[in-house]
């Protein structure tokens, strides 16, 4: 159990750092959505199913969609 949780947390931090590094904003948004998805799994491990459901549907799906729409209406690459 502790190994699985450690692996997930390392993956989540790598996703967050990747969101900071990428010049392509769509890639950065996908990395941020990965952070939200792994956070939802961690909420489930912490015995909070309500919060896990909210985070998976709102944080991972809707937020990523809103960001991608906004990137499409502006510029894709960071200058």
């Amino acid at each position, binding site marked *: 159990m502790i190994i699985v949780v450690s692996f997930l*947390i390392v993956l989540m931090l790598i996703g967050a*750092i990747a*969101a900071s590094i990428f010049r392509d*904003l769509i890639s950065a948004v996908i990395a941020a959505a990965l*952070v939200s998805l792994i956070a939802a799994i961690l909420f489930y491990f*912490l015995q909070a199913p309500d919060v896990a459901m909210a985070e998976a549907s*709102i944080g991972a799906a809707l937020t990523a969609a*809103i960001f991608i729409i906004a*990137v499409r209406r502006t510029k894709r690459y960071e*200058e």
Partner: protein
Amino acid sequence: MSFLNSYIYYIGAFGLILVGFYIILVKHNLIKVIVGLGILDTGVNLFLISVGYITKGTAPIFSRPGIDSEYMVDPVPQALVLTAIVIGVAVLALALSLAIRLYQHYGTLNLRKIREQRW
């Protein structure tokens, strides 16, 4: 190992908060700053939920009779975080709409260039 066992969730939340602050303070692109705000939000939520956890606890739902209520995790942080997530997406959407409007006005999302242009 016992250190890892007891603090691993705190380390994750702490790392997310620091990365979020770093993105907000260093980056010049407005959408990147908003992405950092979202990561910071997730980190704070993870920290609040992990404070409410109890070792070998169960979810605070009496789905069948005879569940031991002694080992249920704290429901109050869960209720707070549930509302915080929904507020978070609304605030992010409002910030993104302001960013779109700024791009239409100035033609750039770089905060330095916007500051140089004055209007």
